[in-house]
């Protein structure tokens, strides 16, 4: 993989490499759903766009057969902001509507892991992570609602960054869980990520949840003194050690040792991490059930056939929804329905508030939290598809950052004995993205991960 920083690349050369790799590898790894052959631009850096982000005049499937012929008439804000320097080379595969952790829920195909084709690339931004891992793009944009950028990044041995909720605009991202969705960056290095981030920031009038960043240049990494990093005490309990692969757990422990030169590790208690997953899997489907209602088969999706009633139109179109999409709509509608909303939706919201408060307390005494990105390395294709809950468990370490709206990043920290990459995460407090990236950059230097 090219070790040069993104601003040191020979752009024409980079375009050639990326294009050759796309031509040679896409059929083998199922990275892109749509490739823009004619749109290569030798003056711009080539990047990959997750196919749930709008690109004007181009098809956006969101990974679902339902939107197989939907052409977006407008650009997402993140795309607009990258247009000067960067060029989209293709739209990458994802779990249908970003619901999943492996791209196995894609309506098109399963993206394969760059390190082992029998394994998943992770999800939902699996195509974007594999594109970067396979040098089929200089970097990629994904979306992260519960770990969808960080998890596949860790499976593919690349950097995956989820900004603070509101730092980057959601305008143009097919909504999943609107209160948690953020665009994220998948890149070869923390530097590249920060460099791209510089073009994306500043408040967007089209997304009222965005705010103005106080930092303009995220590449001027700066660490003062020896930062305090929290280690979650509860991760050492059986609940989590049973869940975690031995490879991941030992990498976690050895990573801490490696980093101790530069960081001061302290133990913290974050018991609520246990409840973050159930809260997430109530709040997100609830918002999903509402966000998916627009897919009614009238303006897009559905078929052209003549139907006898409006219900027939709804049903015929929605049959195209993949199983996980249907499952989440059901769960969400149930969680919000009268008589059950108290028990499920309202309850999950109060857990979310508790987690937010707890994390904000924790960050009063420390600078960041360090934890694995995923309990396991990339798993075999098909090994978890029969049990959705087991699949959901892959998100256990990532979702609390979304629930709290805080920034998080996954950086490759090493390999297991099968040469499958492992990723470690940093969490920082809300709007502390600059600190997070500075720490991540230092960790990256120390890990000296060789992703060739």
């Amino acid at each position, binding site marked *: 993989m090219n070790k040069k920083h993104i601003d040191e690349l020979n752009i024409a050369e980079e375009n050639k490499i990326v294009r050759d790799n796309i031509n040679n590898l896409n059929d083998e790894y199922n990275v892109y759903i749509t490739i823009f052959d004619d749109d290569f631009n030798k003056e711009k850096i080539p990047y990959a766009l997750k196919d749930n982000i709008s690109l004007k005049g181009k098809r956006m499937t969101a990974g679902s057969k339902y939107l197989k012929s939907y052409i977006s008439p407008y650009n997402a804000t993140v795309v607009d902001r990258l247009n000067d320097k960067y060029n989209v080379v293709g739209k990458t595969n994802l779990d249908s509507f970003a619901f999943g952790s492996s791209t196995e829920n894609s309506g098109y195909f399963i993206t394969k892991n760059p390190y082992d084709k029998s394994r998943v690339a992770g999800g939902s931004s699996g195509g974007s992570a594999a594109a970067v891992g396979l040098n089929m793009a200089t970097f990629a944009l994904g979306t992260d609602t519960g770990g969808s950028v960080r998890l596949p990044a860790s499976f593919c041995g690349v950097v995956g960054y989820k900004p603070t909720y509101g730092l980057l605009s959601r305008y143009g991202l097919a909504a999943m869980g*609107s209160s948690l969705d953020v665009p994220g960056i998948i890149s070869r290095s923390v530097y590249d990520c920060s460099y791209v981030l510089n073009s994306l920031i500043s408040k967007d009038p*089209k997304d009222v949840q965005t705010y103005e960043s106080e930092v303009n240049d995220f590449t001027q990494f700066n660490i003062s003194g020896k930062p305090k990093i929290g280690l979650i005490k509860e991760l050492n309990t059986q609940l989590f050690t049973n869940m975690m692969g031995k490879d991941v757990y030992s990498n976690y422990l050895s990573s801490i040792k490696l980093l101790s030169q530069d960081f001061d590790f302290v133990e913290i208690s974050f018991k609520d991490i246990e409840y973050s997953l159930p809260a997430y899997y109530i709040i997100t489907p609830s918002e999903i059930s509402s966000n998916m209602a627009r897919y009614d088969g*009238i303006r897009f999706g559905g078929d052209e056939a003549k139907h006898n009633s409006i219900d027939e139109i709804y049903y015929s179109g929605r049959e195209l929804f993949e199983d996980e999409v249907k499952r989440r709509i059901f769960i969400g509608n149930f969680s919000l329905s009268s008589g059950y*909303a108290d028990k499920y939706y309202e309850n999950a919201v109060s857990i979310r508030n508790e987690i937010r408060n707890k994390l904000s307390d924790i960050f009063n005494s420390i600078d960041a939290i360090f934890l694995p990105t995923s309990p396991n390395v990339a798993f075999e294709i098909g090994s978890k598809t029969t049990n959705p809950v087991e699949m959901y468990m892959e998100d256990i370490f990532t979702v609390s950052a979304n629930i709290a709206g805080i920034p998080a990043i996954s950086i490759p920290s090493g390999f297991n004995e099968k040469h499958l990459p492992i990723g470690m995460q940093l969490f920082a407090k809300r709007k502390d993205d600059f600190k997070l990236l500075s720490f991540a950059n230092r960790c990256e230097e120390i890990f000296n991960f060789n992703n060739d």
Partner: protein
Amino acid sequence: MTRKIKPIIGLEIHVQLKTKTKMFCSCDTQYFHSEPNSHMCPVCLGLPGALPVPNKEGIKLSVKSGLALNCTINNYSRWDRKNYMYPDLFKGYQITQYVYPIASNGYVDINLPASTGNNSKKKRIRILRAHLEEDTAKSIHETDYTLIDGNKAGVPLLEIVSEPDMNSSEEAKLYAQKVYNTLIYAGVSDCDLEKGQMRFDVNVNIEVVDEYEDKTITRVTPIVEMKNMNSFADMVSAIEFEFQRQEKELDETNIEKAAGNKTTRGWNSLKSRTFLLRSKEEAEDYRYFPEPDLLPVYIDDVDIDKIQEEIGDLPDKIYDDLSNMNFPDEIVTMYTSSYIYYKYLKETLQYIDNINVYTFIKNELKSVTGENPYILNPEFCAEIIRLLIEKRITNLVAKDLINLSIESGLSPIQLANDKKLFTTIEGLDEQVIEVIRENADAVNNYKGGKESSLMFLVGQVMKKAKGRTDPVTAKEKLLKLLKEDLK
């Protein structure tokens, strides 16, 4: 057995606020004569990835409405999603304010008409809440297909919910008209019923009290909601129809109001009857939850006060002011029910502050200008009134000047000069003599003691003078010359 029936009526009034752009996007709201589906964008069309951005003017106009309806404006209000699927609701949910509305606890007073011998009396109708939401698209149902026009999707809509305080169709009508007038005067909506800018959902049921010799039985019928009525007359007819239908149904079925037995009915204006649309409407589950794409609305008291100051005179105040000035009912009614004429009055008063302005506009101007007084510039209207007050023109000339000024766009003074319309005694002698000569019969009749013939002769003089003389002067001159002639 004697039976007493007490109707119970509550209204939900939907009003389109007159913002330039839609509530959550920048599409133009002036869609009335536009091509269907021409005022649309990714946001109001509900395309994947589009996000709503609240229209500040929409929020301001709802605060204004709330204040005009004597509501408390809430410093904190919040957006919720109301989830239901229907082809005219593109996102599959409506952005509304379910839990925390922008305004609550208001009222309007209605004037109940005088029953024989009594003066009219006031009744207060309480307003529970007013909340802001977005309008849906329009469904156009044809025999075997339905068309959708999205131009109105996303237009700001204020829903004003009354308490069930009305006890007759008349009261419901007066309440609806009061809200209608108040909002027009507050400048928040044109409330054009034909354009659907104001629609009524009417909740009706009746309390039936049967008094027997030994006992009294009170029964209340299930609530019926009639949706989307857009005329006061239809509303009254539908309510009246429901009173009878519900009484009959109660006698037949004995089914009383209970949780979950509210039904929805529509009004067929051709057949003059209501028909069942949906039963057990309360079973519908809107799965409300806070809209994650938007921030709550915070309005502080300073802003509320500022908005309050921007609200012009409302019908209640105008009613009191004009009544205190001892104007007759027709004048008071006109300026409290026609905003455009009230506005015109205020503007004309800017040029000439005189009590005659109130009557002139009503008695002289309105018959010419009809719906829109502004076809005559208010400054010109003031000029004509001034000329009248100064007795430089007659009423007849004033009427002519209204028409001439409207036609030419020229100032009445200039017109009066050019066309020599100022009142003058020049030539009056000749005119009177001519009239006496030409109307020998009338002159003889007068001389024979028929007083009314004098008025005829005055009219003839006026006619000959083409309005350039006033009747008093004409009469004086006529009497004088007739007297001389008698000698």
